[in-house]
């Protein structure tokens, strides 16, 4: 009898646990919740105004530039090895991503008026957005702690430690900063996907009398969707995982360095076209808007293929485990050359062609 009671209790507990897990995944996220969570994030930023300061990064004005304190700022200005990237790689990406978030989150808040009529796709997108937002807000706290640790290390010990140790501290911090950028870019991506999921772009392709601001909305959307093309390569795959300059001079180091230079070149072009304050947009007919979206959607498929190629190529493994020796690496990763070629084609041809065509399509003379 006792045994039967124990078994029954265990069974009921298991059922309740399973039910709890099941229910946890259910339920929509309201716009009000997302609004609240953005306010929480903004309050955190405000409460750490020494970390996130006003300033200009690469010509973009922002209130969310990461400040590094006197010692590290001096290293950046002196162009000390590796420190420049804190500004010209990480801060730039963060600012571009945050700029999109700040300019477009109000669009999401306005959905509250017609929240009940949102379709399933939009509701799922809101869930994804909220998930990215809470993950980012959580990580910002980790970042702020790590930043303080790093600044203190430099201020207290920088004059006493050797260069190698200095670089170890720097790389550890860059990893944290890189994760912050990745999380923020994911947030801006989810925001862009939520905008798309509301079918605003489908609607615009059906109405007459489009305005220049509608073109601007499209440009902003494409800008947000394109940012990971650069951050995934430069930060997630390279800067976060290794110090490329110090890697072995194997057969393919020069080839990959050339590719990285091309990525940087295209990043600068992207910033010129999509991030610079040019709002001299064309006013589309609905057919022209449709063509622009068709053009973007084709490009997006190519971008996804390039992203897959980047992950599968695994530059870190090639550089660190195989000393940039492609011949040896091919025994492990048979398609490595195919992936590399895809990336080369994407960054030298596909991407620049798209940027040229898209900017001609959306900007007035």
């Amino acid at each position, binding site marked *: 009898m006792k045994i039967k009671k124990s078994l029954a209790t265990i069974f009921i507990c298991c059922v309740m646990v399973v039910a709890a897990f099941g229910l946890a995944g259910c339920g929509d996220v309201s716009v009000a919740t997302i609004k609240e969570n953005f306010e929480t994030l903004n309050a955190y930023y405000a409460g750490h105004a020494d970390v996130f300061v006003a300033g200009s990064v690469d010509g973009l004005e922002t209130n969310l530039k990461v400040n590094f304190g006197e010692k590290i700022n001096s290293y950046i200005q002196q162009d000390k090895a590796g420190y420049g990237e804190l500004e010209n790689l990480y801060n730039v990406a963060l600012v571009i991503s945050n700029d999109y978030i700040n300019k477009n989150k109000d669009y999401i808040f306005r959905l509250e008026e017609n929240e009940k009529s949102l379709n399933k796709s939009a509701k799922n997108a809101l869930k994804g957005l909220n998930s990215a937002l809470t993950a980012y807000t959580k990580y910002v706290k980790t970042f702020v702690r790590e930043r303080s640790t790093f600044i203190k290390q430099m201020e207290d010990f920088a004059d006493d430690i050797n260069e190698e140790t200095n670089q170890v501290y720097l790389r550890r911090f860059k990893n944290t900063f890189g994760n912050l950028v990745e999380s923020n870019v994911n947030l801006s991506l989810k925001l862009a996907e939520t905008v798309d999921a509301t079918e605003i772009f489908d609607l615009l392709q059906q109405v007459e009398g489009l305005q220049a601001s509608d073109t601007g909305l499209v440009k902003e959307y494409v800008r947000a969707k394109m940012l990971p093309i650069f951050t995934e390569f430069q930060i997630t795959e390279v800067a976060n995982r290794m110090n490329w300059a110090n890697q072995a001079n194997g057969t393919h180091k020069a080839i990959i360095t050339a590719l990285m230079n091309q990525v940087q070149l295209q990043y600068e072009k992207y910033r010129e076209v999509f991030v610079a304050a040019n709002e001299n947009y064309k006013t589309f007919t609905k057919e022209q808007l449709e063509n622009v979206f*068709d*053009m973007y*959607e*084709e490009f*997006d*498929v*190519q971008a*996804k*293929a390039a992203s*897959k*190629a980047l992950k*599968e190529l695994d530059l870190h493994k090639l550089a660190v485990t195989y000393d940039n020796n492609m011949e040896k690496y*091919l025994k492990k990763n*048979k*398609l490595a*050359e*195919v*992936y590399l*070629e*895809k990336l080369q*084609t994407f960054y030298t*041809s*596909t991407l620049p*062609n*798209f940027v*040229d*065509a898209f900017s001609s399509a959306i900007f007035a003379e």
Partner: protein
Amino acid sequence: MKKRWFIAIIILVVIAVVLAIVFINLFKTRTTKGFAEHFNTYVTTGYLAQDKEQYGTIDAYLAALSTNEELSENEQNTILNERASLHAYAITGQFFNRHIIFMKVTEVFQKQKGKIESSLKKAQNAADDLEKYINKNMDKSMVGGVVYWEAETYSDTKGFLADIFNFTTDAVNRLADVYVDCMPVANKNKDIAILNNDYAKLIFKQTKTLTENVSSKIGENASYGAILEKFCNSYYSKQGEELLASYPYNENLQNIVKDINTLGEESHFFAQFIDGNIAG
């Protein structure tokens, strides 16, 4: 009693594990990776790898044979066509190699991949046999030298050469169908095809026509192989692929493709298209 419970639990665990494996495999995302890796081997280290010894050996043998006057005109034409086709298929193979890993797994892919692999394997086996024969029987210093002896070897090797040509032609034609069906589509509602647009379809369609010309007239006329080689070199090379990628933005090319699709051989652009110079 205890033993029975124990056995029952073991059986339940085994069933659970088997079911788990079945469900995992059912819902696992399928990719073209396995097929892509096999195909990659033929193009990078196998008989279609232009920078490898096997390809060089077969190509040099064909080059020597093609000028051998001990052979009949029909035999020389066949050899010239086979040589030109080998060159064409090497370039075409590289093209497909760049794309297969990025394709989706569709019904067409599932249906064709086994047959493509089988054809390529048979072509590779024929190439291996041919290479073995050449290395065993040919004194390399005699290549282009002892004409009579070279002609004697042709009766032994023509079967291998025919297999290489026929099986590779089969594989290439099937790959064209897979490519058209499996390259990603941007917008399901509008069917915006990526890299398998009207221009690509035109190229594949014409490739099949040209390979058919070579097959059906292989001994009659050596120009068919030369036409196929020039065509494939133009459109399947990296430069050719850049033109393919530019199609969505290239109104001039779109108009030419439309014209050829509408008028066929009557199109003003058809001759330059066949000549490998569609954009003029």
